[in-house]
């Protein structure tokens, strides 16, 4: 379970959380790419071919700025890339996230160990078929 050397896009509209996530992941040797909404994240993903996973908040401002939209759009282009959605609003969020094509869903506040393990596991999985 070592994420060192991986490339991950992190998305959250709360700058405080985005900052600590970036610091934590970089401390673990991860190359992070930060976005504060889904639209920005999608553009970032399109410009970053080596990106191995996306970790995104669900509720973010903008008409198509939320994590659900982001997941759908990413899935249209790439069915394999791991997308982990996280949200503080638990009710029905997981179902929505999974239906949109998310690889995994975590409730805020999440355990970093769990998040690291989830991302690592998803990255190491061979693409299906």
């Amino acid at each position, binding site marked *: 379970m070592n994420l060192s050397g991986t490339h991950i896009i992190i998305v959250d*509209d*709360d700058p*405080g*959380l985005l900052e*600590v*996530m970036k*610091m*934590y992941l970089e*401390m*673990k040797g991860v190359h992070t790419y930060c976005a504060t909404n889904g639209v920005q994240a999608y553009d970032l993903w399109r410009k970053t071919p080596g990106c191995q996973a996306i970790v995104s908040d669900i*509720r*973010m*401002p*903008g*008409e*198509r*700025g*939320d994590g659900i939209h982001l997941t759908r759009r990413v899935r249209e282009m790439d069915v394999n890339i791991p997308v982990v959605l*996280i*949200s*503080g*609003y*638990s*009710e029905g969020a997981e179902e929505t996230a999974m239906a949109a094509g998310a690889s995994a869903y975590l*409730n*805020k*506040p*999440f*355990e*970093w*160990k769990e998040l690291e393990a989830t991302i690592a596991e998803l990255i190491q999985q061979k693409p299906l078929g």
Partner: protein
Amino acid sequence: MSYIQRKTAFLLSILIIVVGIAVIGFATFKLREFSIAGIVESEQLAFSRAAYILGDRVRSYVHGLQGMNGVYLTNDFRPSPQQLTKYATYRDNFKNFEGAFGFGFIRRVAAKDLQAYLQSRRQMDPRFNFRRLSEKHYDNYYIIESIEPYDKNAPALGLDIGSETARREAAELAMRTGLNAITAPIRLVQSPNAEAGFLSFLPLYSDLSTEPTLVKAKTQHLIGWAYVPFTVEGLIKQVRQSFDDRLVFELHDADAGEIYKMSAKLDSRFHDPKNWYEEELVVGQRRWRFRGAFTPHPLIPVLNFLGLVAFVFLSTIHIVWVINYFRLKLSKDETTKKSDEILSWQQAVLDGSAYSIISTDTTGIITTFNKSAARILGFRAEEMVGLKTPGVFHDPVEVTEYAAVLSRELGRTIEPGFEAFVAKARDYDSDTRNWTYIGKDGTRTQVRLCVTAIRDQSKAIIGYLGVAEDLTQVIKLENEINEQRLKMIAASKMSALGEMAAGVAHEINNPLAIIVSWASMLREGIKSQKLNLEQMNDGIDRIEKTAHRIGKIIAGLRSFSRDSSTDSMVDCSAEKIISETLELCSERFKERGISISVTGDLHASLMCRPVEISQVLMNLLGNAHDAICNLSQKWVKIAVRETTDSTIFTVTDSGTGIPDTMKEKIMQPFFTTKEVGKGTGLGLSISKGIIDSHRGRLFYELVDGHTQFSFTIPKKKKQSA
């Protein structure tokens, strides 16, 4: 009063007026008649007196005739002219016999003796001149032998009056009867122009001692006649002075026709023979008819006028009196009927009223006690009116307390009793406060009693009126409403909280995630020694700061959920209210991609209960959120504007307004357009209640095609220096 009664009264008054006028007319007519009768009576008397005077004057000539006969008798029937003159002188030439020309003597001379007589007579009196009035032949001549005074009667001396029928007949009548006799009207020789003259005869006999009454003896013994000639003008000239000035008269000889007729201006009454007085006078054995009438009495027109004036005056008084009487009677009837109506109406109002209505006189004795009073108190009107005071159904403790309050307030001692109920009403016209009525069976009833002073037209107090509302139902209802309202507010809050839950969870979970992240990082950093001290300190600071952020959110939630209606008004800035509100709900908007902008005078400060205002703002934002979350354009603008007297908050969203059919209803409780389970329909009505309690206004407008809700909070009035 009905039409029939009015008509009857009208006819009756007309009848009374007509009868009254008739009576007055009759009375004044009678009075006039009576007065005229008096005049007539006096006229009657005056006429009779005139007739008497006339007759008496003629008859009085007999005295002169007797005197003349006396002279003949005493001188052996042959007095000398000198003797006669002497006698006449003695009799003052008969001046006292007014109207008479003089007195003389006529001798009967047989035809055979005529020449001898004439001769002797001429010798005796040279003035004697025998003449006749006709050539008729008679056995006897009746010759005027003497007449005194001669001057006035010269044509008569020597005249044979027997030669003329009227004279002869009268003389012979006197002879036969022995009584005075007068001729029919004749023309006198002394006054040939006078229409009516008379000779009056009184016979003289030589001897009447034997059988004097026999006509034969009289004829045989006749010497002659004393006689007096007079004209009616002369006679009347004398008597006229003694007559009433207004008397107009005629004198007729019954056998020979008119003697005298007075010409005078006669009024209509003279055409009516009834108005003529008539009397028959027998003078000198002739029947004279004396007719007279009176020219109008000068008083009669006056009487007529006075009668008319009296009639008009009395009639007017009568008419005025009758009209006034009936008008008074009508208006009195009308007034009585009106007051009856008013009384019935009053009774109906009193009995129909749901309020207890009790009136008293000035001393407190009950004068009115209506049905509602009886129902509330259990006393019957009969056992209260005129007997008791309101003290019997009041709580003495309350009365004593209120008397003490009033004593302080009015600055004089108010005795605990009836005075406590009316003291203020007397000074300020009415006094309204809550009291406890104690019924006959001890039931206590809360009432709101308004005591009013009843004043007459001169503003003097004549009693007091107490109108009391039974508050039992009102209090019950008020309690129910309060309870309901509290429930509604609570429900609304729960609903709002439920709607917030999602956002709040995220609001809290996000900072929790930050805290957890920092904690994890610190742990990893310590373990791997990759973090320096500064970085670790920074992490701890971040944890602390984020924990405070959570604390603030929770504090906001707590203050929002508790009952804030009893909070005191405090000074608070608009910015603080808005930011605290947004802190609780911004996540919901963010989730739906709705942008929120805040503009305007954010530093405006207002006196309010901030939590309540925040609740209103939250409600308006929530409504905006629900209305626009599915539109393509999603924005909400909050603006604050200050005017001189209030602070205005507006919440505008990108929606296109509220349909006209709903505009009226949006402020009503339980009105909602949201799907079942999403809204209570209480938000706006409660918000309106809150703004009302701040004396502000909450209203909806369509501004530039967008939905806009505004509310105003009035500024505290500045204390003038």
